[in-house]
């Protein structure tokens, strides 16, 4: 009986030997420099418009990151519910810059292979067209009816500019990161 309880506990009790002690350091290096200043006051969670309607809890996310619960933090879909409104960053009494911590964690989550499909799609548009929201037929017509050029004077109008933007995404490895297949164009 006792053995069974212990076995079950392993599922929800934090196991000290399973913590990634270098995780906080890695978050700091990835742009969340001031994560160690957190005193768990909860001003971030209280200020969060997303947390008001979802299970997303900024304070909890930061606590988990500080403990070194690497996989739990990076695989958590709630990480993607922050709208980057920066209210927590402005109000944090310790200057943790929680939004910067979230952005760092997101970069790490993507690198660890936890990118959401919808975000892969948007990123694919960005790599393919140079616009995360490319022009469509409806708005080509609308532009003309408004007295604008059918194609805006952006990367949409210049093959050379598009090549440059695509070249940069190759150079930084963004195409590989999002799993973009050039031959398929997505």
């Amino acid at each position, binding site marked *: 009986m006792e053995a069974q309880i212990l076995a079950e506990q392993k599922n929800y009790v934090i196991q000290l030997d399973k913590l990634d002690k270098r995780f906080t350091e890695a978050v700091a290096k990835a*742009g969340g420099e001031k994560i160690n200043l957190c005193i768990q006051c909860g001003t971030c969670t209280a200020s969060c*418009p*997303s947390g008001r*309607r*979802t299970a997303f809890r900024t304070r909890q996310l930061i606590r988990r990151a500080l403990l070194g619960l690497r996989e739990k933090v990076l695989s958590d879909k709630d990480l*993607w*519910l*922050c*709208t*980057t*409104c*920066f*209210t927590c*960053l*402005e109000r944090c009494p310790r200057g943790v810059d929680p*939004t910067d911590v979230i*952005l760092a964690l*997101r*970069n790490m989550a*993507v690198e660890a292979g936890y990118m*959401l499909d*919808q*975000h892969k*799609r*948007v*990123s694919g548009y*960005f790599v393919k067209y*140079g*616009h*995360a*929201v*490319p*022009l*469509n037929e409806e*708005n080509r017509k*609308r*532009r003309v009816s*408004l*007295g*604008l050029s059918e194609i*805006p*004077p*952006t*990367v949409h*109008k*210049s093959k*050379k*500019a*598009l090549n*440059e*933007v695509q*070249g*940069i*995404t190759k*150079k*930084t*490895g*963004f195409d590989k*990161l*999002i799993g973009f297949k050039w031959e398929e164009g997505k």
Partner: protein
Amino acid sequence: MRYAFFLGCIMPNRYPGLEAAMRNVAKVLRIELLDMEGASCCPPPGVVKSFHKPTWLAIAARNLTLAEALKADATTLCSGCYGTLKDANTILKEDSTMREKVNKILHEYGNEFNGTINVKHIVDVLYHDIGIEKLRGFVKRPINLKVAVHYGCHLLKPTKYRNVESSEHPKFLDELVEVLGAKSIPYRDKMMCCGAGGGVRSSSRDVSTDMTKEKLENIKNAGGDCVVTPCAFCHLQFDTGQIEIEKQFGVKYNIPVLHYVQLLGLALGLKPEKLGLYSNAIPVDPILKKLESPIVA
């Protein structure tokens, strides 16, 4: 007065009415807008920056060099684009290591970031470069409307990269609205996010529209005639969002949404069709009808 006009994605590709409004308003105010030929997506501070910061910074830098080549400060109607370009410009000007890294990539295309220009939101241009008093002189048709001002997020925050008096109680956009004759009404959670940013609109549409709905509910309860935003993405979220809210929640708000530049255009006496006001998902007729009525002092 000349500015490099950064278009971004949402404005030229989804709400070209805003682009038309800006180009026509610029003519009246004698602002010269220079096209940044070959500019790309900014890229978004909540999306590409969330995925891979080095890519975000390198592409933003490329866009900034296009304005540098025009020897003009860059301006934009989208607070997402503003957030990216303003933050990236500040980081690259201050951090020589980052600048070197980015320039190593740009050099391959014969390009270089030099940090010679500033990035200004169109609201900055109107408030600081033109100024309230000068703007007052341009008003031909006073706007007798009760306006719910939505500041949005990236115009104001992070304040470490902005030049604003307060991100909790800012006044400049209300002043810009009121100089046109309108009344900026107070409403609950006025400073709250519209729900579009951070990749939430693309990944969790229901959460995103739920936030917009809360704002619209508060605006309705306060008796706002319309929402006025300084941002193309907030504009999309409030306007297209109302169609999505109707599908998701079965609630119809029918609150017209205007970009500040469109409201300004109306006050300058420009026709609604010159301002792209008929390209919105939510019809703007109710406010146009109100405008024809005499001003209630």
